[in-house]
């Protein structure tokens, strides 16, 4: 019965993704290529003094991205520090410095890691004027950066320009994210997600005791939380909270929201480079990895390993009855594969190896299908690496869609691929190498004994550097060291890769190509199953070589014991 219901759920998911994603991918391609501005967009450009027709080279584009991000961090930090004097703060005090720093970076980098419990920390103004803005903006930045790489690949003539950052951001917001989130919020409202400003109500229960019912503008936050692959919950329990995710229908809809833009962007890529087969190949590789990982998490959770799981008779610790094991695993895998980090069940209580695969989902580099924008550029970087490897094997100058992958290009790709693992392993290494820090983390932060405690810290750095934001949430991360170290990991894990992507986009845009779109070049065809397999293999090999040793210390040690 369970299996049949789950199969029907997956079928519905596929139908919904095709029905929404197909037209959306066409719409996104038009959004990023049209010459026509909307009236409201022209108004914004005039207000900001932006020349919408001016094209930028990559350093200028990067300066725009960094400027708005740094200002965003300052604004969000300021709002949290001023919470005590802001309206609708539910009487909550200012957020302490370390936590405010961590949270500001977390939301600006699209990570949405939460070192705090929202209902005990943030009032409505901080959530709305602070966090919601970054939920929109950080998603838009990811998409804009991805599009520059697509433009670079598609470019002809070697002009070196990759777009206009202000136009890309404004259009992403006005044509995709704001209308999309509005529709999503209404659907969520209809399923029972709350939307009010009532604060906490106390009611008398049937037994004569009291119960607290929280309020809040949840539907509006929830919509962009998922559509922008942000993942920061309005409540501590995130999408496990019945007011964030009340029913089986809302659960499926939230999964659709997380997946739809990242998958659709693969097709948008094909449209923009003038060769749909290339988009299909990217999509096929993303789907292959998504299915493999999701099947693994699901099977391991159903398998129910772990002494406590066996004692209970099923992996229901940290899971909601309405979602059961299957619909929890589907959500957990989707969230960790999309860099969203929302959870509808507590990953810390997953079976040892099931929890490990959610970690592995992130370690793949958030590209199957990854976050909005970041998934596409993450995958394209790996695809280019795969082309380069294949080029070495067949002994020809590697090219991707007519763009030569020479020393300069492969340098940017290599730096991109190495950044996240370096940040994770350095953060983890420092945590366990500095004696005072190790003692503090062991005493204050780690919640579970044995290798699982190590896994909590590994998960935290993996999540932060990959801008996912989910956690083995038993970890108390609101300490000076973890707030600082995870904050740094989120910042470096977001903006160093963006620098390399923009640099590569600029490098491609400077190459004068005269190749017919879709022509096979360099002896390597990049739209056939062989290439899809090569790209999938590259993802798996890079992740396995990088992370197997560290996984052996935590989840593997626990799961194979």
């Amino acid at each position: 019965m369970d299996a049949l219901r789950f199969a029907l759920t997956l079928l519905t998911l596929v139908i919904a993704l095709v029905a929404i994603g197909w037209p959306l991918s066409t719409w996104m391609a038009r959004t990023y290529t049209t010459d026509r501005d909307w009236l409201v967009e022209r108004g914004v450009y005039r207000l900001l003094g932006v020349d919408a027709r001016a094209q930028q080279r990559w350093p200028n584009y990067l300066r725009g991205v960094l400027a708005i991000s740094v200002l965003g961090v300052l604004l969000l930090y300021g709002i949290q520090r001023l919470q005590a004097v802001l309206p609708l703060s539910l009487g909550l005090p200012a957020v302490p410095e370390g936590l405010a720093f961590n949270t500001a970076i977390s939301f600006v980098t699209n990570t949405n890691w939460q070192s705090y419990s929202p209902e005990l920390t943030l009032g409505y103004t901080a959530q709305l004027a602070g966090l919601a803005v970054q939920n929109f903006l950080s998603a838009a930045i990811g998409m804009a950066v991805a599009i520059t790489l697509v433009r670079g690949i598609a470019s002809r003539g070697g002009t070196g320009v990759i777009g206009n950052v202000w136009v890309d951001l404004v259009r992403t917001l006005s044509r995709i994210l704001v209308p999309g989130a509005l529709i999503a919020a209404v659907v969520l409202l209809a399923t029972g997600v709350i939307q009010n400003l009532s604060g906490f109500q106390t009611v008398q229960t049937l037994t004569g005791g009291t119960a607290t019912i929280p309020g809040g503008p949840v539907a509006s936050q929830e919509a962009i939380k998922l559509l922008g692959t942000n993942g920061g919950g309005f409540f501590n329990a995130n999408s496990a909270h019945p007011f964030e995710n009340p029913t089986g229908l809302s659960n499926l809809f939230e999964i659709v929201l997380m997946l739809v833009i990242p998958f659709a962007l693969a097709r948008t890529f094909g449209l923009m480079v003038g060769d749909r087969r290339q988009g299909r190949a990217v999509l096929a590789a993303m789907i292959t990895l998504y299915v493999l990982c999701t099947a693994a998490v699901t099977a391991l959770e159903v398998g129910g390993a772990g002494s406590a799981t066996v004692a209970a008779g099923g992996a229901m610790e940290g899971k909601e009855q309405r979602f059961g094991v299957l619909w929890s695993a589907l959500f957990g895998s989707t969230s960790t594969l999309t860099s969203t980090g929302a959870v509808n069940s507590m990953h810390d209580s997953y079976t040892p190896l099931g929890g490990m695969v959610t970690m592995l989902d992130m370690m793949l580099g958030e590209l199957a299908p990854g976050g909005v924008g970041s998934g596409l550029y993450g995958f394209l970087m790996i695809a280019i690496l795969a082309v380069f490897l294949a080029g070495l094997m067949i002994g020809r100058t590697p090219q991707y869609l007519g763009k030569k992958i020479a020393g300069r290009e492969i340098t940017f790709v290599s730096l991109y691929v190495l950044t996240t693992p370096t940040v994770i392993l350095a953060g983890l290494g420092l945590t366990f190498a500095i004696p005072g820090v190790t003692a503090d983390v062991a005493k204050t932060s780690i919640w579970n004994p044995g290798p699982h405690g190590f896994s909590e810290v590994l998960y935290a750095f993996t999540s932060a550097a990959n801008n996912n934001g989910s956690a083995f949430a038993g970890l108390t991360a609101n300490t000076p060291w973890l707030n600082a170290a995870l904050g740094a990991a989120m910042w470096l894990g977001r903006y160093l890769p963006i620098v390399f992507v923009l640099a590569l986009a600029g490098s491609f845009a400077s190459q004068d190509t005269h190749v017919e779109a879709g022509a096979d070049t360099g002896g390597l065809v990049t739209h056939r199953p062989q290439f899809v397999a090569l790209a999938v293999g590259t993802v798996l090999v890079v992740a396995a070589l990088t992370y197997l040793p560290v996984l052996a210390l935590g989840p593997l040690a626990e799961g194979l014991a």
Partner: protein
Amino acid sequence: MSSVISRGPVRTWSVALGLLVLTTVATIVFTAVVTLIGLVLPAQANGSLVTSGGRVVGSALIGQSFTDAKGDALPQWFQSRPSAAGDGYDGGASSGSNLGPDNPDLVKAIDERKAAIVRQDGPGAVPADAVTASGSGLDPHVSEAYALRQVDRVAQARGLSAARVRALVEQHVQAPDLGFLGEPTVNVLQLNIALAALAR
């Protein structure tokens, strides 16, 4: 697009202004529009509140504990799942236990919960949801199996026939959305409200 190449520096004030415009749109306009739409769906927007005897006794979506002041189960009410939200079902502090799958504390807690259920409800298998804390700590549901397991105890405590109480449970089994999007559930608060009405 035209080929004008922008070389100018980034003007901080215009970036800051852009951020303020976005803050206004994302905060005030977007939230206000969704909140206005929420007025059309007041039941959902306000938290699916449920009443009994003319007063609000909770939300259909937020679980509650049916225990005495000491936290012991009241035998005349159907019991919710264990909860890690505050002291149990604290709507101001949603949380899972986050205990790991091999944590000895969790094994011990599960064994104790099992023993308590066998003591109160009689011998037999105990469903997994009855001995595990949910992700939110506010799970409003239990499995049909756990609800049925409590029937004899509740019937006895209330002086009702077990058949009547069992029929009530069976009426309250909710199929998942569309029949397949998730697990079947029993809403504990709604079941207990119906139970109170039955007794009267």
